[in-house]
């Protein structure tokens, strides 16, 4: 590749070569200081060349595309990239927070637990400082302008990792006729072959790899790069996070990431291994890197991170790095911990039985290394220290699949053992290279185990002395293994330290849990298309466009978009709601009630089915008549209500609440399939087939007569007729206390139906009304809604509907009505309450006898007398039906509102129902 890419780091204009990561580009520009540590603000550089990076975290992108805590080692430079270092002020070089290093002794493990205790009110004081200090990069404050997709995929074999072992597994599967998905978190297939070029099967490594990738694609499989397998769940359900562009980059077509939900018959994990650092004093200085990372920068990215290099090694892999560095012209010294003459013929300066003690240097990088060689200290001048501490297999997905781990003594590492699902691990993840562990050396207070959380060997020792022996406890006490890297480079080192302190083997020290995601996943990727106005499914009734044209105040009734009011001029919500309600009381109004649940119930046994579902009598309904009904759960408590209409001899329409529609559909299906499987009945949800318009008010019968050319049906009657030439089902039912009708159209005719009705309503001085007016009207009348009033905790008697129960019985829930506890007279019962001294009754308020006495009930819905004014409400009150006339307080301490109220009947308006009679 050729060319130059321009980017900035902390405002400084720099250039990179195509294909370089930000880390490689920074090293190529001679920049070693990349960030500041979380706790002590110590200068930090680049440790690794992969997703395990704990130090080199930057904020990239601008505005809504800004992404904090991005690993410079996992970010490929693009033209115009803007990267900013983190956790420093005022600048990376001169960070005021570095003063904390002077008081590091006062900030030991468990500092928060030991310091911030005392009276709870002091937390309000501490919180300001803790919040300011907490976190790494700043969260973006602007809306992300890009899209994220969520996609399903199915395959026979999912191969995670495209190193040689993964590629061979993919090829084998393809040749066995399997559909394969091959995913690689890097930007290229087989990135390890760029680090360690080799010939495979007689071909250059990358030619060999590209040919296999092509074979996977041509077989109908899929190859995804920049894709991380973030988690594995039951039945081989794997989530993949695919970056379509780099963090902060402007996507060409607006799509920035795709989150895959994959079901795979088999999962092959070729996830490789992560190199372990060594633990010595100042091992966190810029210029101390992992050995393989040094090799990667040298061989893959063409950047040699140092000219005088000391490699501290416990295994043979270090010598490959030494060779790469020498090839690139660097001076190399190898400090090998082993006594075996592994490096004897390497041609390098090798010191065996050697261990690093302390790195010298500062924020601009290391200048030397003090080592212990055969018991004697020796100082090596250097500008780069490479650590080859062995390898930790990446077993995260194996463990999430419920797998076991075995201990590989030669590698001093956990390797995948048995896996319960069809998951297998291949390559270095299964067979890591042999290595020995060195343990910590040098000053334990400056020897870092977890670089990201500034956890030192001394912190681990302190926690151990304080009794934190479990790996899980130790993690939480010291924060080891937390945050963005999740301890990828630190956990094994920490376990080794604990084991040494305990005098036990590492496998006995225990492990922490390998939770998803393996690497951080953008919140946007998890949300997918469910953002902004699409955050939740939105259901629009058939008349949505008609309402939207009036610019109403909307109300989210579950997923439904309903109209709350249609304000006129500068009307407030309350003013417009009251105006609309008064129009209904005095003239007429029309309201979209299409969202009501509706079920067509047909068949010779329809009535038997309905008398199981409904707790009221249905069998006695004449054709053309309807009635109010309610439904009980099997425990005898009322959970929904509605109306039932007999359209023909064996054909009924059952309505129920909007909010409970899905629940009712499920319930009816259950009853039909399991409790009434033998009945000859069909039950079909027709909620959306019919659009329904309520016409309410004293002038509504005249409106109906004008629209249909016939006398309006009497209350609780139903007729088939026509309006504006459209067939309709006309139900005479009221939820307002006035004469009212529900006109049910085929939903595809809804708009024409609305126009025709509205014309007639307006002709008598009426107007459309929304939920706000409906609430005022129904509360005044004492009609109940499912949710606040019918909340599934009261019986029919307690709701004042006991007389409506079917005396013949046979309905669901009947048996449980005999439970003795339901006869307790001090259970809550529905009542009305009215304000005595004026003022509003707060909805949801507690009902109390005196301030600070226990709550005896609560307000379920509050409103006004529509014409006369005055606050009224419905409420649930212990023993309420016997407490009419009692004075209580409706008290809302959270809103600091209290109203003095009198208990009474819930029917404030026309209790005799005279207004329903023509």
């Amino acid at each position: 590749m050729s060319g130059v890419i321009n980017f900035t780091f902390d405002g400084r204009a720099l250039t990179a070569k195509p294909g370089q990561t930000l880390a490689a580009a920074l090293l190529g520009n001679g920049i070693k200081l990349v960030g500041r540590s979380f706790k002590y603000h110590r200068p930090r550089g680049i440790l690794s060349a992969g997703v395990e990076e704990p130090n080199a975290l930057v904020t990239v992108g601008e505005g809504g595309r800004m992404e904090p805590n991005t690993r410079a080692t996992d970010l490929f430079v693009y033209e115009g990239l803007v990267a900013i270092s983190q956790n420093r002020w005022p600048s990376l070089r001169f960070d005021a927070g570095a003063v904390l290093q002077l008081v590091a002794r006062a900030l030991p493990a468990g500092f928060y637990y030991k310091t911030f205790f005392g009276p709870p009110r002091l937390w309000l004081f501490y919180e300001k400082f803790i919040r300011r200090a907490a976190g790494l990069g700043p969260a973006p404050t602007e809306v992300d302008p890009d899209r994220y997709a969520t996609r399903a995929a199915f395959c026979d074999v999912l191969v995670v990792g495209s190193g040689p072992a993964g590629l061979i597994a993919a090829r084998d599967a393809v040749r066995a006729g399997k559909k394969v998905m091959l995913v690689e978190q890097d930007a290229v297939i087989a990135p390890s072959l760029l680090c360690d070029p080799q010939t495979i099967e007689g071909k250059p490594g990358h030619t060999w790899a590209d040919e296999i990738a092509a074979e996977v694609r041509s077989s109908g499989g899929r190859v995804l790069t920049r894709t991380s397998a973030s988690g594995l769940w039951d039945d081989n359900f794997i989530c993949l996070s695919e970056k379509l562009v780099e963090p902060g980059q402007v996507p060409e077509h607006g799509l920035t990431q795709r989150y895959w939900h994959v079901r795979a018959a088999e999962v092959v994990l070729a996830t490789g291994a992560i190199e372990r650092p060594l633990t010595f004093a100042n091992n966190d200085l810029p210029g101390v890197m992992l050995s393989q990372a040094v090799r990667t920068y040298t061989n893959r990215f063409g950047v040699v991170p140092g000219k005088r290099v000391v490699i501290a090694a416990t295994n043979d892999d270090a010598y490959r790095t030494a060779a790469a560095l020498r090839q690139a012209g660097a001076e190399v010294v190898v400090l090998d911990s082993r006594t075996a003459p592994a490096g004897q013929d390497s041609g390098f300066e090798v010191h065996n039985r050697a261990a690093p003690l302390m790195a010298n240097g500062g924020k601009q990088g290391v200048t030397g290394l003090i080592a212990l060689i055969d018991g004697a200290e020796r100082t090596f001048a250097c500008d780069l220290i490479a650590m080859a501490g062995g390898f930790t297999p990446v077993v995260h997905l194996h463990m999430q699949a419920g797998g076991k781990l075995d201990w590989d003594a030669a590698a001093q590492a956990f390797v995948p053992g048995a896996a319960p699902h069809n998951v297998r691990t291949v390559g270095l993840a299964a067979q890591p290279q042999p290595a020995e562990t060195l343990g910590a050396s040098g000053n334990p207070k400056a020897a870092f185990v977890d670089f990201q959380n500034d956890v030192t060997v001394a912190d681990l020792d302190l926690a151990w002395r304080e009794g934190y022996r479990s790996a899980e406890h130790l993690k939480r006490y010291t924060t080891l293994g937390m945050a963005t890297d999740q301890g990828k480079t630190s956990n094994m080192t920490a376990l080794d330290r604990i084991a040494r302190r305990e005098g036990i083997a590492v496998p006995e020290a225990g492990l922490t849990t390998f939770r998803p995601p393996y690497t951080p996943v953008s919140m946007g990727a998890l949300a997918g298309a469910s953002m902004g106005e699409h955050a939740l499914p939105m259901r629009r009734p058939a008349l949505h466009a008609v309402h939207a044209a009036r610019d109403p105040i909307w109300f989210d009734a579950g997923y439904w978009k309903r109209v709350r009011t249609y304000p006129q001029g500068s009307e407030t919500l309350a003013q417009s709601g009251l105006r609309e309600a008064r129009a209904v009381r005095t003239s007429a109004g029309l309201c979209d009630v299409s969202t009501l649940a509706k079920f067509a119930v047909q068949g010779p046994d329809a009535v038997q089915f309905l008398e199981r579902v409904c707790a009221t009598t249905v069998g006695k309904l004449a054709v053309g008549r309807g009635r109010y009904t309610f439904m009980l759960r099997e425990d005898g408590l009322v959970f929904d209500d509605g109306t039932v209409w007999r359209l023909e001899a064996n054909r009924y329409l059952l309505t129920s609440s909007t909010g409970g529609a899905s629940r009712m559909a499920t319930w009816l299906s259950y009853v039909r399939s399991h409790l009434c499987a033998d009945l000859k009945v069909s039950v079909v949800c027709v909620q959306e087939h019919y659009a329904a318009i309520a016409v309410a008010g004293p002038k509504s019968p005249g409106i109906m007569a004008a629209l249909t050319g016939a006398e309006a049906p009497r209350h609780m009657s139903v007729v088939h007729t026509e309006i504006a030439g459209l067939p309709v089902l006309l139900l005479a039912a009221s939820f307002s206390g006035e004469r009212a009708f529900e006109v049910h159209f085929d939903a595809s005719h809804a708009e024409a139906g609305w126009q025709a009705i509205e014309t007639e309503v307006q002709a008598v001085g009426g107007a459309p009304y929304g939920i706000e007016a409906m609430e005022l009207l129904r509360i005044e009348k004492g009609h109940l809604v499912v949710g606040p009033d019918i909340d599934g905790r009261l019986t029919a008697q307690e709701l004042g509907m006991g007389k409506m129960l079917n005396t013949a019985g046979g309905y669901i829930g009947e048996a449980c009505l005999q439970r003795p506890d339901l006869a307790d007279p001090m259970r809550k019962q529905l009542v009305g309450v009215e304000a005595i001294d004026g003022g509003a009754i707060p909805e949801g308020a507690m009902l109390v006898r005196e301030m600070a006495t226990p709550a005896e009930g609560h307000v379920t819905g509050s409103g006004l007398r529509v014409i006369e004014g005055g606050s009224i409400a419905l409420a649930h009150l212990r023993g309420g039906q016997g407490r009419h006339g009692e004075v209580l307080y409706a008290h809302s301490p959270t809103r600091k509102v209290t109203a003095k109220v009198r208990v009474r009947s819930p029917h404030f308006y026309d209790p005799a129902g005279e207004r329903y009679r023509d």
Partner: protein
Amino acid sequence: MTELRIEPLERALLHVLELWGDPKRAAKQIAKALGHDLPGAGRAAGDVMRLSPTTWLVAGDVAAIKAVLGDSGALTPVGGGYVRARLSGSKWRSLLMEGGLFNAEAPEFAADCVATTLIEHVTVTLRVESAAACLAYFPASHAADLLHFWQVSAGGLPQ
């Protein structure tokens, strides 16, 4: 073949046919009237799609069924609540994987196969018309969002 076309269709006359008692006996009568058997699980035949062991969705005129149905079942009009769209072109299967959880890319999901699944929280019934097209039925209340989702997704399908 164009890559992908999303085409909302005119509202159709739709009925749910539910059989009770001895569905096999009734099914024979209906098969005679339709000229073909009522489709089995996951299948469609003619204008009929099976929804469950005792229910089918019937498009178009149901007079023939009504004539023989008698007391064996019921027909319920539901067309007002459904929107239909035809997805056609070489990428219709790929589109259905967006926000979905059903394997629409499986070759077994071929012409006259039917599946009811969830796409972006919406219940969608799919009927494969041919290798190049599929009909989708979904609730009218979700139609605006689902069609918008498909239009947006169509621009970003993976290769």
